[in-house]
């Protein structure tokens, strides 16, 4: 039984990996967004807001841009479940003798893999913007990226289970993904937000992920960088992952 499920998880991730490698265009187009934000938005605003921050703005948003990369590629990867439903492949998985839980975990790990690879590519741009990171820092950033990717991929699956087709795609984009990004502290510290928006950012798992990334990128505590203790960040990400996976598996299990 367990071997069955492990096989299923393995092969679901392997399928995603093959497709990821095969579709070069997808990689380039998903990397284009964070690169644009980093250099165009970050580069432009650097001249405007740099003096008070203690660091150039382009460096300040770097953890946020890594978080953005993870957010978009996790959610998009998970939303491929809607693709699978639309093109029928989901049925192939649903009639197989494997648990719904393993399908959800397999899909979440697929998203984790894809998002972490992309985050790593963006991370390696650090010398270009004048940051210095040690090998240990890079290692810890990668660890945070993995758990954050898993968390957001699980959230993506949960969202995807409620939609049957692509008509809802722009709804997800405009009402879930973009607000999550803006309310995550990626562009400015969440402390600066008015109370209501501040509350929304507190229930946004990405906030904690970006907070942890800031902690790793700028270990010496500086003004306006991270807002919460690292232990809180990591606990929130892990607990949220668990909750998302369990709910998604339950929704999947429900038969019509």
């Amino acid at each position: 039984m367990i071997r069955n499920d492990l096989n299923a998880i393995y092969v679901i991730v392997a399928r995603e990996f093959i497709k990821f490698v095969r579709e070069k265009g997808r990689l380039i187009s998903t990397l284009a967004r964070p690169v644009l934000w980093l250099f165009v938005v970050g580069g432009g605003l650097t001249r405007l807001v740099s003096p008070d921050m203690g660091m150039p703005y382009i460096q300040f948003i770097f953890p946020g841009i890594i978080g953005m990369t993870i957010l978009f590629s996790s959610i998009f990867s998970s939303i491929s479940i809607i693709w699978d439903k639309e093109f029928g492949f989901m049925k192939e998985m649903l009639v197989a003798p494997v648990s719904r839980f393993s399908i959800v975990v397999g899909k979440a790990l697929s998203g984790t893999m894809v998002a972490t690879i992309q985050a790593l590519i963006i991370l390696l741009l650090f010398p270009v913007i004048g940051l210095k990171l040690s090998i240990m820092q890079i290692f810890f950033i990668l660890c945070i990226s993995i758990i954050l990717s898993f968390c957001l991929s699980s959230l993506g699956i949960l969202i995807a289970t409620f939609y049957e087709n692509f008509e809802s795609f722009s709804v997800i984009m405009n009402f879930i993904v973009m607000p999550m990004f803006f309310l995550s502290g990626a562009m400015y510290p969440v402390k600066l937000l008015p109370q209501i928006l501040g509350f929304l950012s507190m229930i946004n798992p990405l906030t904690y992920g970006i907070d942890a990334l800031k902690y790793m990128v700028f270990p010496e505590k500086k003004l306006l960088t991270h807002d919460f203790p690292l232990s809180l960040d990591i606990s929130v990400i892990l607990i949220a992952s668990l909750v998302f996976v369990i709910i998604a598996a339950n929704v999947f299990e429900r038969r019509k």
Partner: protein
Amino acid sequence: MSSIITVENLTKKFGNITAVDKISFEVEEGTIFGFLGPNGAGKTTTINILCTLMSPTSGKAYIDGHDCMKESSEVRNKIGIVFQDNTLDKELTAYENLLFHSYLYNVPKNERKKRIDDALNFVGLYERKNDQAKKFSGGMKRRLEVARSIIHQPKVLFLDEPTLGLDPQSRTNLWEFISKLPEKNDVTIFMTTHYMEEAEICNMIAIIDRGKLIAQGSPEELKKMVGGDVIYLRTKNNEEAIHEIKNNLKLDAEEKNGEIFISVHRGDACIPKLISSLADMVISVRLQRPTLNDVFLKLTGKAIRPETVSGGDEIKDAIRSYRKKSDRG
């Protein structure tokens, strides 16, 4: 012979629409069972319940002794399915699609390659195994799906409209593979089709209309329901010939549009007698046997054709919108 599928009083309601209404039937092991009906009659709903994708509102269904509701994992292990819509991953190659399947069904590691190669050979796609599925024609995709569905050696194979949308040549081709399956792979086939001539290969047929099972039997038995064969004769002198047939052969004959119309039990055996008794009067002979289409027409009042726009489509739409609502709620 024992039955491998048992369905008892199966009912499925979507809101106030009854898609499947208290149907019961059994399928014997090693046979080909045809499940026929017009659009929206409840065929796919029944298959979805048997495949553990849906729960029935009431009633029971067993596959190889396992309850489709309570022992879904055992049932899933024993069944293979070719769905109405294509369920391949078109970005993956033929081989990768089958490999994915063999992992999902826990095919032993040392057997995977051999089983996949055998299945690809069986459907004649071995040479194309490293091509992406998106490069395949409709018929090839179907064959690949059939190959995939037998990789884990299921005991029951569900084929839901396997030939829908295929050209006549691919259809003939596909049925060749399918009709070989029960013997070669020791599997029972449960199939639905819109093409009545394809249903001729079934050992047993059940006809469903508006959720209710309205007839069951072998193709021969069903055809008897609409009456026997009809022989059409053209002769040099119809009046004389009818007289002859009535007196000498004791058969009922009538003239219709210049042809003599004779209703008989076994037409093929009757023709030689007719010809010898009518001597050189016969110009031409034509035998018409009832087809399953006639059976269908008689029982449901409509011809079974995919392009028929029937009330069924409305039911399908209703089910779809019901599902959407229940998904949101």
